[in-house]
């Protein structure tokens, strides 16, 4: 079983010197988030993740959660105890506002804590992650009574939450869902329908589960405009807060899947036994999709965080293997003497790709999280809107770019292990299997690319995108001396990305939607790699200034990573331009029938 050690120094450096935590510290609500606090919190959360959660990953993978046949689901051995301790230690609440009983940490910092838990065991981490979504939904759109009833125990994660959207015919196309909600005499609702793929939809970790269910009310307009949001608790909650009757929600089965075996992916049936499961409407009828959008940024960013976190885990295991495994002779090495494989340039290339991309992702994701914080709490309205727009652009990139990299880098982790990597016992394959889902759920990466190209490019008439490119170019221009080559590669990549964005903007005006859609995915990749280079360049610049409290060797590493990325990743950005701008015609050149 591989160990996990939270990369605390890099997390702190990225927050303080790359992503720009200092802006957040100017706000009274976050003034206390100083270096000491980060160290104290990261230290202990890291230790907790390593010692309590990380040992679960392999058990979770090999045993997995099991459907008992009677509608209950048993989690793997050790999960209950670990979850209990997780709740008691107060980690799940750390990132929520104090007003609702949280610890008051900004999202940027909470993202780092989340990264630790995901890296320790992604299957486990999904349970609290889904709960975060429920908390966001209720705190933003729930009634006072609903907040009083559910929020407290969800904030602490004593109860867990779910997001119940998907149905067999309604996946990417949420608007196609058919689960019905009809009003009852007492002002509550009755829900009937079958949902699939519901993460942590049933389990034995908490005494209650609060489902947030999307359904249609009688006479609702078709598509996404006719969707309403309901609270459907597993156990109804009495006025005094105690648990009442079991609601009519049944877990019919759970899926056998590629990874995240401890996370039960449930088929949930509502209203099997009678007139429907009891539900409570959130906000207004038919406003469900609008409510979902308000919490989408955090949810998508969390999924991007999965790509980052699992890559980090895979990297740690691959790096320690590469230091130990001896095989082959290096150029100029003694005959008959085997060298540790880390000395072979190709192995080093893989390790560097992993490490540089991980640092790049961490930068982009934390900047994204801080943009969410700033968009909520900055005083100045104009700056608040700017940060909101930035978050809107970064979120689909964080989600898709980082989750795709997750699969790519965990695959490199296997490759570094050679044959042993393909053998399950080694444990390297689990990270790849676990990571694969992140590109699919919470809006597939194809849908993210579409969102970026179709909706984010035109945001504010193209001004938001333009401002982002200007920020990158401005930082590039500030790099001097040894960092000049990094600046040059970053500028070239940014100009290429900006050129594609300009053309796409033009095409959108001309109605050439299919041409934009055909190039959306390579464009998202261009953007991700460019912004990753931006963050690494900022890191190199900060490292050159030798900030106090960091080991000089660590700072030198940060400069070397930025240089490596500028040499090996940024040049590939320019190569994607052709694919982005090729248009849709060639993609449809072979007739549909020729695929059959």
């Amino acid at each position, binding site marked *: 079983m591989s160990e996990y*050690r939270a990369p605390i120094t890099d997390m702190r450096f990225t927050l303080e010197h790359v992503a720009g935590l200092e802006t957040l510290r100017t706000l009274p609500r976050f003034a206390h988030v100083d270096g*000491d*606090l980060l*160290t*104290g*919190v990261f*230290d*202990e959360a890291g*230790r*907790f993740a390593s*010692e*309590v959660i990380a040992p679960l990953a392999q058990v979770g993978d090999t045993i997995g959660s099991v459907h008992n046949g009677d509608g209950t689901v048993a989690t793997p051995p050790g999960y209950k105890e670990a979850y209990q*301790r997780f709740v*008691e*230690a*107060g*980690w799940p*609440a*750390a990132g929520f506002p104090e007003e609702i009983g949280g*610890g008051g940490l900004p999202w940027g910092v909470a993202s780092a804590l989340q990264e630790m838990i995901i890296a320790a065991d992604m299957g486990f981490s999904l349970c609290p992650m889904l709960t975060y979504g429920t908390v966001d939904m209720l705190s933003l759109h729930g009634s006072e009574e609903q907040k009083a009833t559910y929020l407290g125990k969800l904030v602490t994660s004593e109860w867990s939450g779910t997001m119940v959207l998907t149905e067999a015919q309604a996946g990417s196309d949420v608007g196609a869902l058919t689960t019905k909600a009809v009003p009852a005499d007492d002002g509550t609702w009755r829900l009937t329908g079958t949902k699939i793929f519901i993460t942590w939809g049933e389990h034995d970790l908490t005494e209650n589960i609060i489902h947030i269910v999307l359904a249609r009310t009688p006479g609702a307009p078709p598509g996404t405009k006719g969707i309403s949001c309901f609270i459907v608790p597993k156990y109804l909650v009495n006025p005094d807060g105690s648990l009442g009757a079991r609601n009519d929600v049944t877990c019919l089965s759970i899926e056998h899947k590629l990874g995240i075996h401890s996370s039960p992916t449930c088929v949930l049936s509502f209203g099997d036994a009678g007139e429907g499961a009891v539900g409570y409407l959130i906000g207004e009828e038919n406003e469900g999709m609008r409510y979902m959008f308000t919490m989408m940024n955090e949810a998508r960013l969390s999924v991007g965080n999965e790509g980052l976190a699992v890559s980090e885990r895979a990297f740690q295991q691959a790096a320690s293997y590469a230091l130990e495994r001896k095989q082959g002779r290096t150029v100029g090495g003694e005959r008959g003497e085997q060298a540790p494989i880390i000395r072979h340039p190709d192995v080093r290339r893989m390790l560097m790709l992993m490490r540089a991309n991980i640092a790049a992702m961490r930068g982009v994701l934390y900047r994204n999280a801080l943009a969410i914080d700033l968009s909520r709490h900055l005083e100045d309205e104009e700056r608040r809107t700017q940060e909101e727009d930035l978050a809107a652009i970064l979120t689909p990139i964080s989600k898709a770019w980082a989750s795709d990299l997750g699969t790519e880098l965990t695959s490199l982790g296997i490759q570094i292990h050679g044959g042993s990597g393909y053998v399950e016992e080694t444990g390297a394959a689990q990270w790849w299997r676990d990571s694969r889902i992140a590109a699919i759920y919470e809006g597939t990466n194809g849908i993210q690319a579409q969102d970026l190209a179709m909706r984010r490019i035109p945001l504010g008439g193209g001004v938001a995108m333009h401002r982002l490119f200007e920020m990158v170019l401005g930082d590039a221009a500030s790099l001097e001396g040894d960092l000049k080559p990094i600046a040059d590669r970053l500028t070239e990549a940014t100009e290429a990305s900006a050129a594609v964005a300009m053309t796409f903007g033009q095409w959108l005006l001309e109605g050439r939607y299919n041409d934009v859609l055909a190039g959306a995915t390579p464009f998202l990749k261009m953007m991700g790699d460019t912004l990753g280079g931006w963050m690494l360049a900022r890191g190199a610049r900060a490292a050159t200034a030798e900030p106090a*409290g960091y080991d000089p060797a660590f700072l030198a590493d940060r400069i070397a990573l930025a240089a490596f990325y500028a040499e090996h990743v940024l040049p590939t950005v320019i190569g994607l331009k052709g694919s982005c701008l090729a248009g849709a015609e060639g993609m449809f050149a072979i007739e549909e029938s020729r695929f059959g």
Partner: protein
Amino acid sequence: MKIAVCVKQIPDPATPYQLDPETHLVMRPAEQVLDDTDRYGIEVALQLAAATDGTVVLVSMGPAGNLQGIRQALAMGADQAVVVSDPLLQGSGALVTARVLAAAIVREAVDLVIAGTESTDGYTGIVPQQIAEILGLPALTFARKVEHIDGKLRVERQTASGYDVVTSPLPALVSVTSGAVEPRYPTFKGIMQAKQKPVDQPTCADLGIDPGSVGLGGSGQSITAVRPAPARTAGTKIHDEGEAYLEIVKLLEQAKVI
């Protein structure tokens, strides 16, 4: 009851230790962490304090640095800390350490002193007994279980062959073994509160300790040379032809494990 727990900040064990080439002393960065073996003593103290409505004060000697390790201990739930941090103390041996800690403990007027059995960076393993002797307290060492019953301590003392049960009136000193209890993980609230808890940092002068009696000069001991630990030698391979377990049994017997 009021309980003092002796704790130590040490350089992060995950990074290689640096020795000062001249004095051979461990170089201590500003960021030092709590010695993991201290967590057991803190846990025992917190449990006893909770049961008796008492308080826990941490007592430590060594460069305060940024107090990271002390905050870690406070985050577990200790109420306050005394860190004797004085450049004069650099190079002090075990006995001087015991004298200084004893002087700090006396000021706190505690009912019980708890320590680990030895520190992870020093491994002398004699400081707790020395403190007990200086303070004239009964020393109950190598405790694997500590209970407070009818105003007395009942301790299970780990021995080579099992354990002894010993009892003692208070005040007393107890050294606890690693693994005696399962140390709690600090809660998020605990970590936030730790920032606000009082940390007193007296010097030798504050404690009325003669500067000539401490440090390298006052310790009556000196480090004459240091050598790197010998590299690990290759292990022995036993080929199993059905009887390998006998070899292993023999090895375990030699190691006096069985």
